[in-house]
């Protein structure tokens, strides 16, 4: 696979590390509940189809990216910096 890093251009997947689903949002602050945190840490949609994922350009620009990738065809629709995508950010 090649991931189109918005900063560096298309790069081999070997340069990246993977974290997983970008949808769950970390419950922030002292009021966050254990149940919400449990969902965030452990429970996944794991779709067979388009998936928003967190990738880290470890051997490149060190940016965390949100990549929309199909888990059956591996076709990548988009890749954007998480900073602009607001992945995983507390709502």
């Amino acid at each position, binding site marked *: 696979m090649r991931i189109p890093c918005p900063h560096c*251009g298309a790069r081999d997947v070997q340069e990246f590390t993977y974290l997983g689903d970008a949808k769950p949002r970390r419950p922030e602050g002292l009021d966050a509940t254990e149940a919400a945190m449990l969902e965030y840490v452990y429970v996944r949609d794991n779709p067979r189809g388009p998936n928003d994922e967190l990738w880290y350009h470890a051997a*490149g620009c060190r*940016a965390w990216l949100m990549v929309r990738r199909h888990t059956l065809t591996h076709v990548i629709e988009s890749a954007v910096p998480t900073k602009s995508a607001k992945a995983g950010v507390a709502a």
Partner: protein
Amino acid sequence: MAEQATSSWCRRDAWAAIIQVGQIGAAGEPGVKVQLPANLQLATLIATTGSTGLERITKQLVGLDLPRSASIALSATHGLAWSGPGQWMLLARQRAGFSELTSLLSDEAAVSDQGDARAALCVSGRRAREVLAKGAMIDLHGKAFPVGATALTSFAHVGVQLWRIKDGPDGPAFEILVSRSMAASFWSWFAASAAEFGCNVARPG
């Protein structure tokens, strides 16, 4: 901070005991040439989000525009290489004045010295691209990687940043920064890869 190194405190750069000057691999006219730049000074600059101060002050101090994408601005004495969003590698080709320069920048950016953190080499020669293609997962073709382009990537499991400088007499030339601790492994791969073309290694001064 002025630094008056005495003989008891000698610098020993990353290539010491790793690289030997001379020809390696095939004999004859070398297809690959390696130069080890001396006195290369480096520092990471990370701008404050949203601030444009760094752009202004670098222009003022070293006369270079801060590159906004994966490229490097180079003058005879200095360079500013994009090295990630909001990050640059500042380089100077001489030691004198570098710490003064970085301290002037520290209001507008987080500055971290990296001059000792990297082993640098310059690769040129007719077969330069071919050697690098044995490790580079990026396209170094002239159109894809013109003079002034830079990339952070890895060669043979070793993280590098490289850029293309002005062409030499026999084709493109690249400067490569390698993590210091991995210089020996990098060289082991490079020397093996360059051997078939014949490779001349020089260290100025």
